[in-house]
C-alpha cells in the first residue's frame, strides 16, 4: 500500500465515529491501569488520566474536538439514563433518606452558599476576568445544570462545563483527605458531601470506593444541589453586584 492511500484511509477513518469511540474506551482502560499502578492516587483519577491521554491523542493526530465529539457523543448520551438510574440506589436507601430529610436540606443549603460565595469572593479578590468569574460561579453543580445557569447569568456555558470538571477532580482529590481529617465515618455523610461538592465525579468516586450507600447519598446531593443552586445562585450573584 502506498503512503498516499494510507493517508486517504486515515482521512476517512478520523472523521468516523469509530475512531473516537475506540480511542475513548482504550484511553479509559489504560487510565484505570495507570491509576492502579500509582496506588489509586486521586491525583491520577482515571477520568483525569483518560482526558489527558485523549487530548494528547487529538493534538497529535490533529483531530479537532467537534469531530471527536461526533463519535464520543454516544458515550456522552448515556449520562442521561445514568442520571435517571440514580433513583434506584436512592430507593434502596429510602428509609435513611426520609429519616435525615431535614438535616440533608440544611446541609445542602449551607454547602451551596459556602460554595458560591467563597468562589465569587476569592475570584473577585484575585481579579479574574468577568466571563471567567460568571462561568466559575456554578462550578459545583453537575455540568448540564451548570451550563444552563452560566448562560442565564452571563457566563460562557462550555467554559462553565470545563470548570465543573476541574472542580469534580479537585473535589475527588481533596475530599477523602478532608473527611478523614474531620473524622467523618458515616457513609451517608461522606457521600452527601462528595455529591454536593463534586457532583457526578464525586458520585462516581463514591460508588467506586465508598460503597452503594455513599453513592446513593452522593446522587441525592447532586440532584438536590443542582435544583436548589439554579434558584439561589442568581440571587447571590446580584448580592455581589455582578
Amino acid at each position: 500500500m502506498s503512503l498516499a492511500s494510507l493517508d486517504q484511509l486515515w482521512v476517512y477513518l478520523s472523521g468516523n465515529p469509530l475512531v473516537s469511540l475506540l480511542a475513548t474506551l482504550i484511553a479509559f482502560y489504560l487510565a484505570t491501569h495507570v491509576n492502579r499502578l500509582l496506588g489509586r492516587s486521586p491525583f491520577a483519577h482515571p477520568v483525569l488520566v483518560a482526558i489527558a491521554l485523549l487530548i494528547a491523542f487529538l493534538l497529535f493526530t490533529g483531530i479537532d474536538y467537534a469531530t471527536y465529539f461526533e463519535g464520543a457523543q454516544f458515550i456522552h448520551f448515556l449520562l442521561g439514563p445514568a442520571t435517571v438510574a440514580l433513583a434506584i440506589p436512592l430507593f434502596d436507601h429510602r428509609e435513611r433518606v426520609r429519616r435525615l430529610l431535614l438535616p440533608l436540606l440544611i446541609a445542602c443549603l449551607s454547602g451551596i452558599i459556602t460554595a458560591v460565595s467563597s468562589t465569587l469572593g476569592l475570584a473577585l479578590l484575585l481579579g479574574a476576568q468577568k466571563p471567567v468569574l460568571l462561568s466559575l460561579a456554578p462550578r459545583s453543580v453537575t455540568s448540564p445544570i451548570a451550563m444552563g445557569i452560566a448562560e442565564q447569568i452571563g457566563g460562557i456555558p462550555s467554559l462553565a462545563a470545563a470548570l465543573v470538571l476541574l472542580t469534580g477532580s479537585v473535589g475527588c482529590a481533596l475530599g477523602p483527605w478532608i473527611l478523614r481529617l474531620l473524622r467523618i465515618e458515616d457513609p451517608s455523610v461522606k457521600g452527601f458531601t462528595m455529591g454536593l461538592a463534586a457532583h457526578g465525579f464525586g458520585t462516581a468516586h463514591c460508588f467506586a470506593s465508598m460503597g452503594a450507600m455513599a453513592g446513593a447519598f452522593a446522587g441525592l446531593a447532586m440532584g438536590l444541589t443542582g435544583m436548589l443552586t439554579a434558584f439561589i445562585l442568581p440571587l447571590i450573584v446580584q448580592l455581589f453586584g455582578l
Partner: protein
Amino acid sequence: MPLIMGMSVLLGCQFIGELLVRALSVPVPGPVMGMVVLLIGLMIRGRVPDALRLAGEGLLRYLTLLFVPAGVGIMVHFGLIGADIWVLLVTLVVSTALTIAVTAKVLDSLARRRSGGEEA
C-alpha cells in the same frame, strides 16, 4: 431481553422528565426530573424490578467513563483558562475544600443529634 426492558424504562423516564421540564419551564435538566419520575414510580411499585436493576446498576458502575467525552472539551478553553490559571487553581482548591468541610460538619452534627436521639 431484561437489559432492553430496563433500558426502555430508564429512557422512558428521561423522556417524561424532558416533557415535564418543558411543560413546567423549570430550570432543571430533563434527566434530573426523570430521576424524580422513576423514584415516584418505584415508591408506587414498592420494589425495583430485576430488569431495571440490571440496566441501572450496569450504567452506574461505569459512571466515570461517561464524563470523559465532555471532559476532553476542556482543550477548547486552554486559552481562557491559561490566562487566569492561578486565580482558578487557588479559587477551586480553597473553595472546594471549604465547601466539603462546611457540608460534612453541618450534616454530621445534625445527623448525629438525630440518630443519637432515636437510639438513646
